[in-house]
């Protein structure tokens, strides 16, 4: 062969060889991040310098300077750490105020929108035909607003607003603090006849809003009709949906509706209808805490906003760009009155009406501003900084305490389905899937795997099982005798009875006295999706009155204690507060207080299922922690905000792993989110439950899951036991699908969700679909 051939062939062969060797990497698709992941932080944002023209300086506090523009009702906060300017409104001039023909005009702006864009407070009210209308503090002709200084203190101002059109007066106290702003709207300061028609108050609805569109002058037509969208600002809105979600600012071309997060869930007794129906859509995860935030740029500027009063009536709203407005904005909305369907006969005929008296409560809303990457104060201007700032606030106010960890290994949460009932020839029949003795066997078997830190919840131990068991006593049926349970509870594990004190049904008790009543006077009920009077024991459930729930919890806990239980596991009332409009009405705030008192009166360890923030004070273990969001289309990232807030104060356990949560990605997510594994198990096969209300526990048989429990626990324990008792100080996305969590003492856990080995800038290698603990 000639050398010329060699010259061609050898490089060709080399190229071919290289190509083949590289093929596996080329073929494997790059890791595609979805809205279930946290993506790389936004780009750096460029922002304009502060321009004090036309502003009145109010005060300086710490790194912040405060200014006010009387004509537009806009409060401006300059963060001197980074020069970023925050405004409570868009601070836009009205189009007719503009004289310079070169200045573009704001698109879609009329007098009302001009007021809404700028105002500090926006008020929603019901008009004479009960339609919701909006007006704002800066609405010329409709409202008069005046800023006053209180007691000569420049840091305490009060905006007195008179909404002349609807005859409503209210005052907003503004406290200018070193960390940011605090707004207070006191109940007694809302006056005037219009208060009975007050629907809701929005605070600073356009603070931090992004988007907008300008109209440029068109010489040809002689009009402002050349639309140009404002340049997109890199940044996001944080909302407490599920474990935490980010909505990055972007122009969706699909026509999306706004996000409404009802803090602490829906109070069914004051909802629109007294009959609720379970659908085939999974219920959305309502915020467990009254907090939201916004961040601009790559850890440049952010704020976190939270309510310390009025939180139970708070909604978190994110309104995307839509046909009405080109802005994306997020704000708190405090609800004062709602419409409900008032039924006046047995045919369910009725009409919509407002409650006679609006809700009475004080609103206190805090805004804390964050700047930079957190090197100086540990509070980065991103969702991690928001979480840490919020956690600090909760620690300060006693909602959270720092927990002392004693055990070296992480806990394993296991729930046993003991029994449930199904329809029988006469009445209902108990289906036993686990007896007390079998539970003991399983616990022993799990402990023999070397899992010593074990927490067990017993579901449906009573006669009648999960559906029929009475929430106020402990009367056992076919699952075992009292002495069997005494033996079980004496085992070396944290064993408790798990009971739902909220969702009740007619096989347990009479509904007339025990169920909460709707505003319309009817018993509130939930029609079950697959409930059928002929084949299932129940077709509807009701909601227990808060005072009843509290009484039952206390009684049953006493009975459990007498048997030797050291902890209780509470379901139902933890994630939902229900008011009652029976003979002696119990308002929502009072219902919350009743639940709190009931839990604080227990001198036992308390495990709660997805508790709302007002119960965290009493929580030792947080069960069924959300690991995802509700999948709103606007959401672009999922973040462990909730977990970061709770970490170090209680044990946080995840959803049941055996119900489709034990894939490789799920285990990595548990390690990433610092959440402990949990399982739901039966001794017998789960198909026995097919005709019961527990038919959605589709795979629970212990023998099937023994090896999976061992492997899932083994892996999560290996990673998470290292950081037990350490403070979670930061979380960073290094590349798509690669995350590092930083804990104090220099410990980091790298998690690699991708199918490729990852090498961090510091040289740390993380296996494909693996994790790596450094610094321990």
């Amino acid at each position: 062969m000639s050398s010329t051939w060699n010259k061609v062939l050898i490089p060709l062969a080399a190229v071919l060889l290289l190509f083949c060797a590289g093929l596996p990497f080329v073929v494997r698709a790059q890791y595609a991040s979805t809205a279930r992941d946290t993506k790389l932080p936004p780009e750096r944002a460029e922002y304009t310098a502060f321009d004090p023209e036309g502003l009145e300086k109010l005060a300086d506090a710490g790194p912040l300077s405060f200014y006010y523009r009387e004509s537009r009702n806009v409060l401006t906060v300059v963060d001197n750490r980074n020069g970023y300017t925050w405004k409570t409104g868009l601070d836009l001039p009205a189009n007719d105020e503009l004289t310079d023909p070169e200045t573009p005009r704001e698109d879609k702006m009329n007098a009302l929108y001009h007021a809404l864009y700028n105002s500090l407070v926006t008020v929603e009210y019901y008009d004479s035909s009960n339609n919701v209308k909006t007006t704002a503090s800066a609405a010329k002709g409709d409202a008069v607003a005046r800023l006053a200084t209180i007691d000569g203190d420049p840091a305490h101002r009060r905006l007195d607003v008179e909404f002349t059109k609807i005859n409503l007066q209210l005052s907003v106290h503004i406290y200018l603090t070193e960390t940011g702003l605090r707004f207070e709207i006191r109940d007694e300061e809302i006056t005037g006849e219009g208060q009975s028609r007050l629907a809701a108050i929005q605070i600073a609805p356009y603070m931090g809003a992004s988007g907008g569109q300008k109209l440029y002058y068109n010489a040809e037509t002689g009009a402002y009709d050349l639309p140009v969208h404002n340049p997109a600002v890199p940044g996001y809105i944080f909302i407490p949906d599920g474990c935490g979600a980010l909505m990055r600012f972007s122009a969706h071309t699909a026509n999306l509706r706004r996000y409404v997060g009802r803090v602490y869930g829906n109070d069914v007794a004051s909802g629109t209808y007294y009959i609720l129906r379970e659908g085939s859509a999974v219920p959305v995860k309502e915020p467990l805490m009254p907090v939201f935030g916004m961040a601009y740029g790559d850890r440049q500027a952010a704020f976190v906003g939270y309510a310390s009063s009025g939180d139970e009536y708070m909604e978190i709203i994110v309104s995307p760009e839509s046909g009405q407005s080109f802005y994306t904005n997020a704000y708190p909305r405090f609800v004062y009155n709602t419409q409900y369907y008032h039924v006046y006969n047995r045919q369910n005929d009725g009409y919509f009406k407002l409650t006679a008296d609006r809700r009475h409560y004080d609103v206190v809303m805090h805004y804390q501003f964050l700047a930079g990457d957190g090197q100086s104060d540990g509070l980065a201007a991103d969702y991690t900084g928001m979480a840490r700032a919020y956690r600090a606030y909760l620690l300060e106010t006693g909602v959270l305490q720092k927990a002392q960890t004693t055990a070296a290994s992480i806990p394993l949460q296991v729930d046993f389905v003991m029994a449930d009932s199904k329809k029988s020839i006469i009445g209902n029949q108990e289906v036993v899937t686990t007896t007390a003795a079998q539970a003991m066997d399983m616990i022993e078997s799990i402990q023999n795997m070397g899992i010593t830190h074990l927490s067990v919840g017993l579901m449906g131990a009573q006669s009648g099982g999960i559906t029929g068991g009475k929430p106020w006593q402990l009367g056992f049926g076919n699952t075992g005798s009292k002495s069997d349970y005494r033996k079980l509870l004496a085992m070396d594990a944290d064993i408790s009875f798990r009971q739902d004190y909220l969702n009740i049904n007619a096989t347990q008790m009479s509904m007339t006295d025990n169920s909460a009543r709707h505003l319309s006077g009817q018993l509130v009920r939930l029609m079950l999706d697959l409930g059928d009077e002929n084949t299932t024991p129940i077709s509807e459930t009701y909601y227990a009155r808060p005072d009843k729930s509290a009484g039952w919890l206390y009684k049953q806990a006493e009975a459990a204690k007498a048997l030797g239980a050291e902890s209780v596991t509470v379901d139902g009332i933890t994630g939902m507060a229900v008011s009652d409009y029976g003979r002696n009405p119990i308002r929502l705030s009072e219902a919350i207080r009743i639940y709190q008192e009931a839990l604080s009166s227990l001198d036992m360890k308390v495990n709660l299922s997805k508790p709302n923030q007002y119960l965290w004070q009493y929580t030792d273990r947080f069960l069924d922690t959300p690991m995802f969001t509700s999948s709103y289309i606007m959401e672009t990232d999922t973040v462990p905000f909730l977990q970061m807030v709770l970490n170090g104060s209680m044990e946080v356990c995840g959803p049941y792993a055996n119900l489709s949560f034990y894939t490789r990605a799920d285990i990595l997510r548990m390690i990433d989110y610092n959440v402990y594994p949990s399982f739901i198990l039966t001794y017998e096969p789960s198909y026995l439950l097919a005709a019961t209300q527990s038919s959605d526990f589709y795979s629970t048989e212990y023998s099937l899951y023994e090896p999976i429990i061992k492997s899932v626990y083994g892996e999560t324990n290996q990673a998470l036991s290292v950081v037990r008792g350490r403070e979670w100080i930061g979380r960073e996305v290094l590349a798509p699908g690669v995350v590092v969590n930083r804990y104090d003492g220099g410990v980091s856990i790298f998690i690699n969700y991708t199918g490729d080995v990852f090498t961090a800038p510091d040289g740390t290698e993380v296996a494909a679909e693996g994790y790596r603990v450094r610094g321990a």
Partner: protein
Amino acid sequence: MHKRSILLFIAVLFGVMAVGSARAEAGYYTSYTYTVGVNDSMIRTQSAYLPDKTITDLSLNAPEEITFGPDGFLYIADTGNRRVLAYDPGRNTVVFELTSEEFRSPRGLYVTLNGDIYVADSQSAAVFRFDREGTLLQTYRRPVENSYGDTAYNPYRVAVDRGGSLYIVSEGVYNGIIQLSGNGEFLGYFAVNKTTLNFFQRMQQLFFTREQKANLQANVPLTFSNVYADKKGMIYSVTMGSSFGLGSQWIERVKKHNTAGQNMLGLIPAAGELTGIATDAQGIIYTCDKRGGIIVYTPDGEYIFDFGAFGEDMDIAGLYTELISITVADDGTLWTCDNKKAYLQSYTPTEFTKNTFHAIDLFTQGQYTASREAWTEVLRLNQMSVLAHNGIGKAYLYEQDYENALLHFQVAGNRTQYSDAFWELRNDILQRNLTYVLLVVLLLIGFFYALKIFDRKQRLRTAVVQAARIPLSVSFVANLVFVFHVARHPFDAYDDMKRGHKGSLPAAILLYGLFFLSFMAFMLGKAFIMQVNIESIDTRALVIGFFAITGLFAFCNHLVTSINDGEGRFKTICMTFAYATGPVTIALLAYTGLTYVITTNEIFLLNFMLGAGATWSLLLLVLGLQELHGYSFGTNMKSLLITLFFMLIVTVVLLILMLLWDQIIQFAQAVGKELFASVFNLE
């Protein structure tokens, strides 16, 4: 399936907000997955598909159809923007935009294996064929053949088989799917939906005059809403119309057509307004409906599961405002399209789904043992999967392991195949034990012959017969056994009874009790093959119904005959009734017992036996009453008819009373409350 549709319907009517507690919530699914559980009830199961990507940034406007091309790109009929897009899901970019001056409302889309793009445009009244570069190759306008007549031609969906024939769904065409040859020749209507008449319409057809009929709305067949051709050229279709319409749930709305256009799937469950259909390489069928429901069927049309939901007032991945089209990628990923919200939503199959499809595939290929193992894996993921229990049962059946097959068919509630397996098992047992059975029979015959020889003087026989008669000397027993006499010689026996010679009230009560017990045993105690689910039987209604009907009969007959010169008294009427129940009691008991050894093939024998027993008893009752009252045959029949009529009236009166009762009680309660409140001065 049906039940859920009704529930959905109610939810729509009341517009009630959907809430609930998601107990078994683990993944990021946004709608529940339903499947058939034991007892044919719908149950929630783990997610079959998880929502993956939501594509909102393609500036779509009212897109109507999506489909995958052979290049792996997703083709989108972006109807509102009058264009067709090719979108690369891997890179999340639009790779190709097809526009044409002719496009006015490009709604339907089909991409052939060689990359030709067919676009159905209803406003342009044409189907266009482009090559993969976007060059217009052919335009299919309204067929000119006489046979097409003046039928409308506004194509909005199109499919093309491997021979190049077009299958077109057009607005305003009720005759069926228009079939055109590749060069535009009208070949006829491929598949036709039949018209069906509901009860009222049938009545109208019967009684209305010609003028009235002319005024009625024309009863046209339901139109097709989509047509689809799989890679092998097999044609599928879905039919419009809501399943809530009167009787329309009995219309075949998901069809897989043979070459003659006939449906090969039969009637399979479907709900909602179906909009789209697609299949994958394995032949799994996916359909979608307007309100967001997605149903998945096996290639044979067996329902596997459904998921997807209507988004009430929020935009959540996997909830729809108007789900218009569904298609499936080669890797099993589903893509769907929301018309109103103009976005795409993809789903990835879960392990559960992959395993289920794998097991179905193995079974279809005849690999029974392998499929059983695959089904066992599905069972591990979901112990309630009826499909898996059925699959394992069938595999065992083919492997001739009948006992295991029985076990799984019973869990699955599959009575037909349980019976098949039982037949085999019984056959097996009979064959294996035939020798023993014959031996026993021979021995018995030998024994009797021997007895005959040794007991020539019949001393032993007499002794046995006499011993057997001893209980008869007890009058109660004699009165009880008298029932057999009644059955054989009703005239004599009832005459004896009337005269008070034979029969007694205690014995009659016992007979009545036995009748009740045999009835209850029949209703609740049959073998699995014949027994409807006990959970779904209202036992109280059975008991009350039994006593109410029999008691009412005796009572009414007494009233009717006492004013008609009947000689019987209430007591004797009851006794006559009780003594007539002998044959039916025996038939009921025999029926119940025999269900444990028969298969569905032999049910007709049992039914015949029960029918005979019931008729016999009825005859005895009629004759007995005739004898008792001293009536002629005619008078007796008349009095019986009046009795039945009277029973009807009493029932109606009682029903009205029961309906009013609720209100009477409420009225009393209201008055009581008022009194209580005013006395104690409460609010």
